[in-house]
């Protein structure tokens, strides 16, 4: 990687599998699934299971006035950012505010308030809440977080469907490497359980009727999830200088575009992103001890991603453990890359490969070791985390175990 080395110095998460890094990591290593029956919807969709966040209490985090300004996706991101900022120990540190970036990815932006507004306009004729516009903005989480931590540098939202969080992490890292900022608070967020949004997924017919079974025989599609995760990135050595301990190294990142289909994935585009990431990290494929896959559980994604991984690890793909966090938290859309970065860092930290749950058996077209059902001890130094979006937008990130 050209430029200074980078470290992850803080993490925060609001997910269906836990609302702290500790709770999330424990749940993923135990193979707990947050995919539950959707039996309380006041409307009907064909799929019956999803991974909503059931126990997030907005009023525990925000007063009424602030809630009138923050749609749910911004609430998730703000709470995750507070955790990450606290873990980094930067709150009491003298950082030049103009050299702090906040970049938050989102696929959906403020879809809950938009959905509610349209419901009022077209169904009930009721008035629209006055702060609908600022709540819908995809940049609203970044603005809110910047206000809370006093970040006065580059602050914006980023959108690339299901790769949004990964692009946000990559851009934050790039700003530090370019010397434009010292600290980047980066990640992604999405809220996914409004009626309009779930019905739109239903219409696309890629949601599994049963559950999420990445890389498994008999997989039938993705499962809708939601949430947020945020990470603090800094130049290597900054944390140690203030007596803080980095949680992982950010070794490199790569991106690519398929320049192709709006929904069908292209293994060549995925492979290119992984190869770019390894080249950026200056590491051979042999250095990688674990791959946290995009692994949506759709027939097409997993087949294409497996082909890309096989191509990169030529001949030894089955020796590299792969797993999909989405088998436990579903697909958190624009947040998924950041949630999975937290999962990947936990794997490095604990020396454990998290499992892929709901696995029925091998799919001959996959040809990988998806770490079925049970976490596996493994001393991992370097791990990949993949995010591949609709529209052929691909990002791969390389994380390393923290030194010491």
């Amino acid at each position, binding site marked *: 990687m050209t430029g200074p080395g980078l470290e992850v110095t803080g993490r925060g998460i609001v997910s269906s599998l836990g609302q702290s890094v500790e709770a999330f990591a424990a749940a993923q290593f135990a193979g707990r699934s947050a995919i539950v029956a959707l039996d309380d919807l006041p409307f009907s969709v064909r799929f019956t299971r999803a991974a909503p966040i059931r126990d997030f209490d907005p009023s525990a985090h925000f007063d009424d006035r602030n809630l009138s*300004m923050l749609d749910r996706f911004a609430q998730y991101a703000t709470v995750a950012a507070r955790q990450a900022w606290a873990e980094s120990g930067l709150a009491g540190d003298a950082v030049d505010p103009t050299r702090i970036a906040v970049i938050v990815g989102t696929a959906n932006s403020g879809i809950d308030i938009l959905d509610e507004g349209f419901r009022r306009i077209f169904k009930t004729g009721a008035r629209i809440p006055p702060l609908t516009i600022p709540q819908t903005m995809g940049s609203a989480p970044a603005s809110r977080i910047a206000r809370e931590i006093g970040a006065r540098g580059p602050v914006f939202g980023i959108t690339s469907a299901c790769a949004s969080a990964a692009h946000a992490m990559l851009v934050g890292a790039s700003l530090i490497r370019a010397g434009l900022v010292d600290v980047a608070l980066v990640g992604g967020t999405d809220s996914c359980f409004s009626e309009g949004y779930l019905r739109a997924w239903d219409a696309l017919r890629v949601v599994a009727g049963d559950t999420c079974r990445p890389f498994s025989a008999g997989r039938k599609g993705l499962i809708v999830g939601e949430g947020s995760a945020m990470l603090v990135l800094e130049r290597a050595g900054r944390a140690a200088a203030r007596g803080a301990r980095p949680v992982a190294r950010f070794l490199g990142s790569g991106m690519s575009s398929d320049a192709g289909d709006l929904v069908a994935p292209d293994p060549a585009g995925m492979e290119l992103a992984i190869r770019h990431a390894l080249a950026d990290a200056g590491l051979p494929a042999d250095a990688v001890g674990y791959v946290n896959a995009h692994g949506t559980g759709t027939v097409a994604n997993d087949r294409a991603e497996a082909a890309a991984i096989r191509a990169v690890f030529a001949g030894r793909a089955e020796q590299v453990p792969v797993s999909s966090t989405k088998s436990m938290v579903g697909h958190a859309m624009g947040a998924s890359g950041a949630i999975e970065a937290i999962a990947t860092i936990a794997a490095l930290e604990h020396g454990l490969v998290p499992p892929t749950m709901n696995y029925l058996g091998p799919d001959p077209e996959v040809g990988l070791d998806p770490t079925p059902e049970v976490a596996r001890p493994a001393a991992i130094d370097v791990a990949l985390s993949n995010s591949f979006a609709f529209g052929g937008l691909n990002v791969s990130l390389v994380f390393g175990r923290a030194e010491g």
Partner: protein
Amino acid sequence: MSDMVARTTVIETDGRPSDVELRIIAFIQKEIQDKSVVLTRATRREEVAIDSIDVVNVVFAIEEEFDIEVDLTPDAKFETVGDLVDTLISFIPAEKRGA
């Protein structure tokens, strides 16, 4: 706003705030950020932090409560809470001002 004075409605009471005034003050009270301040008609704007978001939320609450349209911009100028209350009441038709 420039037509604030023209819109101001004189509330006929025996010196105490009317029910509708109290209801409007309660809406403003709910929105202000410093909950320790107890608003009266005489409270001056500079004594209490009321920003454009508070005003827009109050306007929305009153529109909902009385099922009316309030044509007031968030940057409306007023000197006292009483001025704001009178302006808001001016948008409420007389028959809706009862309890």
